[in-house]
């Protein structure tokens, strides 16, 4: 679409594989109900401060199956503030924020996330917490007379987050 003049390049190609993959994610298929009213846009703090992020346009790209524009390094999806205003406003119960999170799940399946996000996920997967316990933490807690923190039973957490091969299809 950008700057090329060949006829074929003007044609939008719907990526149905992308749409099918998204539909398998929890609440990923809700975008199908979007009629592009834009109620999600007016109250979106990310759009207010940077119009490169626009939940209505993201839903439109999903409907058109333009996965390539959303599933890439430095994806605009990460500008979402997760404030849930769009969820609150949507008359069709599309829950744009949840569709965006499902798209992030697809990014994660491809091993793509910003460094800060990847770091926190790793901390959770190894310690069961997003902010780990340390001697300094325990010292602070003791100062306030708080009980020591206990280790998270990681065997249980790790068994739970292991995907099963037959879960995707329903």
């Amino acid at each position: 679409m950008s700057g090329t003049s060949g006829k074929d390049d003007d044609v939008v190609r719907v990526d149905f594989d992308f749409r099918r993959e998204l539909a398998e994610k929890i609440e990923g298929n809700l975008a199908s109900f979007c009629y592009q009213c834009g109620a999600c846009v007016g109250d979106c703090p990310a759009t207010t401060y940077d119009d490169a992020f626009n939940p209505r346009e993201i839903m439109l790209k999903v409907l058109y199956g333009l996965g390539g524009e959303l599933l890439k390094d430095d994806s605009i999806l990460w500008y979402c503030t997760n404030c849930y205003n769009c969820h609150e406003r949507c008359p069709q119960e599309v829950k744009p924020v949840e569709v965006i999170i499902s798209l992030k799940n697809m990014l994660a399946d491809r091993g793509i996330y910003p460094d800060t996000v990847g770091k926190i996920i790793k901390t959770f997967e190894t310690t069961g917490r997003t902010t780990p316990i340390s001697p300094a933490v325990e010292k602070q807690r003791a100062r306030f007379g708080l009980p020591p923190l206990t280790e998270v039973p990681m065997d249980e957490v790790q068994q739970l987050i292991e995907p099963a091969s037959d879960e995707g299809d329903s």
Partner: protein
Amino acid sequence: MERFAFFPGCLIPTRHPAMEFAIRETLPKLGIEIVDLDGASCCPDPIYFKSKDKLSWLSVAARNLTLAEEIGLDIFTNCSGCTATLSETYHLLLDESLKAKVNERLKRIGREYHGTSKIRHIVTLLRDVAGYEAVRESVVRPLEGLKVAIHYGCHLLKPSRIMQVDDPNNPTVMEDLVSALGATPVRHRNWYLCCGKACQSEDVPANMMHDLLGTVNAEHADILCMICPTCFGQFDHGQMKVAQRFNEDFHTPPIYFFQLLAFAQGVAYDKLGFERQRFKPECLRNFETAASPAGDDS
């Protein structure tokens, strides 16, 4: 005493123990017994781990809920992020097929989710279990004349169909609680804005916080009161960065509501850990010297 299982999450117990201290000081005075939950993990967070894999996120959250189910209690949360994760899990697992899918995973560790424990944000315990009148009666240092701007944050209120805490377009719960302490709540023009923490852009949260702190300042608020540790981090450490970037000194001390409640109930300023904040609510000291109950400041 009414008993509730305490789900402290990650941020408050590790980064902000002063907040946990304040919760443990204040709730028993309002007839609420805190029951600690053994073996809880991160909720998991609704921003990062949820972005990796929703089904895993739901499964770990459901495991946390089974811990409360085992002891037959409702859960209360002190962080709006934990509230979002656990409330959404409860809501999503009303769907029988999704519940079955999650229970397939829980079977691996010999657990089963039933959906018998409800999730309550700690703020709603004060409103619905203790009541505003009990909060008012517990105050020994009425914060008269203190102008308190309120930051609701996002996940106390939204999505309202799932959170069911208050009207997201015109909430009153925080104003009512601040009033119960004798202080004057101030609603600033950007009260509904988000703290911006989840947004992975540098400019968006910085500009947003700049606007928000600007309207708080315009109302001449003494402090900015909030109910979520993530928002707190944004308005404490983050405020410093915003001040540097825009070369403006807002100097609006953020405060977690339960520390303010503990102070109003008579806990000494110096015991509440404010010295660890970048912006300290020093204005509270005036109330301490004016009406200090005998023997409490030891």
